């Protein structure tokens, strides 16, 4: 295993994410995560499931470098996050991670196109290129005819699709979605999951937290978390680890 990477660019051979014995303890003895290890290969679609308070969001925040572990190590697209300062982690987020939130987090009074274009703001791309790519991303999520609509002019499902377009507009190595269907009705939720699956089929690595057993059941891999630990890590159709790299 020689995945050392000093070039400052993504190592194409590295898995999207690797966790070794990760702990996230809070003051007062809360062990939100307690010894979690797994690896997510490129191109995988992984569901994270578990009861409320089990540590799913904590886990996702660590994968997205919004939070730092109190123990163990987290590697994202080959980079050890312990070696990254705020600038480094931010740059890696800008380039390699896309987030989708339950509450969308779209800017009010800003057109869908510009909401999506802001997904590239911190990559240093000029405005024209950001807008051009945002248009492409909105077309990919089926909103090519809603470019200039503002969030309040869109349905909940459409808003979440705008948010997904924003997450994938930069072709990140890792797409992280924390209960993306949580604020949606069943039909919109299903459509959003299908969209994530489509993006995954087109090559994106997707990690999605969901409470919905049915939605989770359709995913090729499920990591079940309980009390800050991995309870099970199962793949559809036995352990056919076709995605996992050795």
């Amino acid at each position, binding site marked *: 295993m020689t995945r050392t990477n000093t070039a400052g660019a993504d190592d194409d051979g590295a898995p999207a994410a690797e966790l070794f014995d990760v702990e996230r303890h809070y003051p007062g003895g809360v062990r939100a995560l307690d010894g979690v290890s797994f690896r997510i290969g490129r191109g995988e679609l992984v569901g994270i499931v578990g009861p409320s308070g089990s540590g799913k969001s904590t886990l996702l925040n660590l994968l997205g470098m919004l939070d730092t572990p109190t123990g163990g190590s987290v590697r994202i697209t080959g980079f050890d996050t312990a*070696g990254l*300062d705020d600038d480094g982690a931010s*740059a*890696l*987020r800008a380039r390699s991670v896309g987030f989708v939130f339950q509450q969308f987090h779209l800017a009010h*009074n800003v057109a869908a196109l510009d909401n999506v274009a802001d997904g590239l*703001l*911190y990559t240093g791309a000029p405005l024209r290129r950001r807008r051009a790519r945002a248009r492409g991303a909105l077309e990919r999520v089926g909103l090519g005819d809603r470019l200039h609509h503002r969030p309040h002019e869109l349905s909940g499902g459409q808003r979440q699709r705008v948010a997904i377009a924003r997450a994938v507009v930069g072709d990140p190595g890792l797409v992280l979605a924390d209960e993306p269907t949580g604020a949606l009705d069943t039909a919109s939720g299903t459509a959003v999951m299908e969209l994530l699956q489509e993006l995954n089929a087109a090559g994106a690595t997707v990690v999605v937290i969901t409470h919905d057993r049915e939605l989770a059941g359709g995913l090729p891999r499920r990591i079940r978390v309980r009390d800050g630990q991995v309870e099970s890590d199962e793949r559809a159709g036995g352990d056919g680890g076709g995605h996992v790299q050795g």
Partner: protein
Amino acid sequence: MSRGSGRGPRPARLSPADLVRTGASGLRARPLRVVLSALGIAIGVAAMVAVVGISASSRADLDARLASLGTNLVTAAPGESLLGEAATLPKGAEDRVRRLPGVRGVAQVGQVEGASVYRSDRIPEEASGGITVYGASLDLPETLRAHVRTGEWLNRATSGYPAVVLGATAAERLGIARIGPGTRVLIGEEYFSVVGILDPVALAPEMDSAALVGRDAAAGRLGADGHPTRVYVRAAPERVAEVREVLARAADPEEPFGVEVSRPSDALEAKEAADRAFSGLLLGLGGVALLVGGVGVANTMVISVLERRGEIGLRRALGATRRQIRGQFLVEAMALSALGGVAGAVLGALVTAGYAVTRGWMVAIPVWAPTAGVLATLGIGAVAGLLPAVRAARTAPTEALGSG
């Protein structure tokens, strides 16, 4: 296999345009709040620009007036003798002064004691007081640069006749606006024809309430004693100080200490200086308004940062560094403050223009005033935004996203 030495990827720089765009985005979302919180700054800058503009316009006007009036007029008048008695100027004063080096023109007036001026003999005595009668030399208008508004000045012929030229205020008091062949006033016992009316004389306001007759008429018809009560001297501009120095001795060689020498343009300058002290006070008030405005901006920014935790978390998730978040809120505070500054500079310029026009002045706003005003508001915005921006940058993204 940790990449201990690797510094990892470096963040991209935001272009200046993107920096301004992100800074402005927060303002665009809340226009009413922008207006209200920039108001204090605007008022402060407006006050300061207006004060500077008005005093500069007034100064420019004074300079223009002084340039046309000249600062080289010097007067000699009787003061008090060494013994504390009222002095008089000797009769030969005008001629002696004329011979001084550096003197270009001389004129004198001699007050006619006890002479009163009436429109006609039917007007009761009290009704037209306050007009002083002088016997004036023919050079007077030229020396004072006084302008005859209607009619004409006295000449060699009319100097001995019962003819009079009225000062602007004197004519007004007598109710004479125009003159015709029959326009007369009663001076002492005799009717004098009014041959001219002067415009106000800026450097010799005592002429405004004067009735000026020829020196011969003053002596022959009104019984004047022939002593000058004031000698006006136009000096060569570069020799004013020199002339001032020797004027008293030339006017009265025997009692030079009884001669009061002054330069009338100094009085105009002194009035201007008094106005400037008042300007300083207004400037101070403008500074206080600016300070209060700065506190208002800081307050608005603190609230904004608290309200926009969700946005901050999102931007961090999109890859913004702490420094970029700090920069965004700093730029926002500076833009907010500078908007107030620009509005204030415009307002201040309008106030200046309005005031100058009502005074009949030229509008003169020094470019540095609005420039400095706007630059100062940028600085105020930076200071006011610093603490909120640092707080925004310190906000933990996980918490920010959870609350948004």
